């Protein structure tokens, strides 16, 4: 269902297929962890984690492709009341 839904064309049995299947299974384990009510007490509208189009990527691959913003240190915003106090 995942392969069809997200248009993946891995040949069944190929090394690439096995690698992607492994990452997919890892992601299922990660979802169990992220959705665990022990770690994140369930409240109304709490975030839900599950299968999406990134589920066959390893966290390293995901990071390398999608998390490429560099952090910058900025000065703290000073509110008007704080400025007046100064």
């Amino acid at each position, binding site marked *: 269902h995942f392969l069809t839904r997200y248009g993946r064309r891995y040949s069944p049995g190929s090394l690439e297929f096995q690698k992607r299947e492994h990452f997919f299974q890892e992601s299922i384990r990660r979802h169990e962890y*992220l959705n665990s009510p022990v770690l994140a007490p369930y409240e109304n*509208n709490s975030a839900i*984690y599950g299968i*999406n189009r990134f589920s066959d990527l390893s966290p390293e691959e995901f990071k390398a492709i*999608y998390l490429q913003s560099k952090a910058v240190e900025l000065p703290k*915003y000073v509110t008007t009341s704080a400025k007046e106090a100064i």
Partner: protein
Amino acid sequence: LPARFDWRDKNLVTPVRNQLSCGGCWAFSIVGGIESAYAINENLLEELSVQQVIDCSYEDNGCNGGSTINALHWLNKTRVKLVRASEYEFKAQTGICHYFPSSDFGVSIRDYKAYNFSDIEEEMMTQLINLGPLAATVDAVSWQDYLGGIIQYHCSSGEANHAVLITGFDRTGDIPYWIVKNSWGSTWGIDGYVHIKIGQNVCGIADTVSAARV
């Protein structure tokens, strides 16, 4: 402050885009902010070129990464006019910087503000209303698996690795949250958006916040 505010309700936010396999979130974030700032001023919503920022912001590394602040610094220093997205299309890879005649349509920035709002997210709401959608950086490691709902856990501050655009907030329910536009297509998250709890600087949403004036 109103209980709920979202620039989308005024039709001043462009549709969610997809950065594909290009690490150009930083460019999508600030271009989204400039599009809205221009729409607020001129009442005309135009999709501007993200590819132009990716190719031309020499302080950044194109699809290999960059910073919202560097890009705003470059736009402010050079007064480069961002052309329409249809004129300088997104290619999902870094290319050679194209130049356009100054008589062509384009949007340049006059100034920008960039601050750390951690501990004062209430003030950030005021700035969102006054300045328009805010570009922000976040820790998005757990977003690989996000489907929907309000993120409250599994997200750190001080470890930013992704850039997004905050378009609004909602405090009508039990958990107040920021309404955040992402650039991973409209099938990801909540129609391309993610909700992040307000307060406690969840995901570092208040660490690096910026807005341009056009």
